[in-house]
């Protein structure tokens, strides 16, 4: 299948992608890197809250919940 680059907030539940780029700047960029959002890292959409925001993701063995405003600035590659 073809590779697609999408923003993380569009990765469907249960699907896995690889982090392609962090579009955050400055401090929040470093924060995401610290949390393990390094290009190449596998990330899976785990579940979403009742309201659809935030959404929980599995990355490097832990679950992290992100708001759409943050996940929409993370690019992932899906296959």
């Amino acid at each position, binding site marked *: 299948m073809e590779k697609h680059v999408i923003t993380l907030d569009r990765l469907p539940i249960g699907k896995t992608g690889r982090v*392609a*780029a*962090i579009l955050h*700047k*400055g*401090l929040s*960029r*470093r*924060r995401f890197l*610290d*949390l*393990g959002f390094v*290009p*190449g890292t596998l990330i899976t959409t785990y579940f979403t809250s009742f309201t659809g925001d935030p959404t929980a993701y599995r990355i*490097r*063995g*832990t679950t992290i919940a992100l708001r759409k405003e943050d996940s929409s600035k993370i690019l992932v590659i899906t296959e």
Partner: protein
Amino acid sequence: MKFYKVRDMDFLMDDNFPRPLVALAGNPNTGKSTIFNALTGLKQHTGNWPGKTVSLARGTFYHRNVKFCVVDLPGTYSLLANSLEEQVARNFILFNRPDVMLVITDATCLERNLNLALQIMEITDRIIVCVNLIDEAAKKGIYVDGDVLSKELGVPVVATAARRGIGLFELKEMIFKVYSGKVKPSPRKVNYGEELEKAIGELVPRLENTFSGRINPRWAALSIISGDYSIEDLEELVKIRDESREESAYGYSFFSQLPGNRGLK
């Protein structure tokens, strides 16, 4: 967030910490306090620094007739000094330069924990990586090869299951060996590539001059180049950063100008 000035944090630097000094750092929930308690037993006390919300537990233990002072730093994922906890942990390591730095990691999610270990390896050489919770890891079928990890990192690695007391004697032995110089950790340095290493090389002599050994010049150079906001509390460093920004092509926020996705296929 509010940045505390270093002079307001002199509670970190007073004579409360006799030598040899062992500091424990690690992500939250990696068993730092369990290891601290196992090492110090009842010989500990938690400093209630007036007006401060972060407390540092301090205690002592004897091993091979040496009395070690141990400090349990706040649990953090990073040393960005992005919160008071991170700021306290970083400044303690940066300024007190512990004789032995113990980085406690969780064997069940080592990869995540090594971020902090690498950050600390950029500040100090005298590091031991403690891979704790090996009993939990074993339940999940995870076995950490300490020798390989030690070779990869360039620092000694000790495996423990602190709640059951497993590996604690070995840990004390290693603390003693690093303190006495029998084991000399040489943390693998990240090579940031030609451009950045050149910029680091330009800054280091000047930083060495200013700080004359008080803080690690390579760390200081990296924090300037990366546009690290967390150095705002280090006035001398900020001064050098602002000067070098004017006179050098390599300034502040060098990293954030990089595309950031290099190497991506």
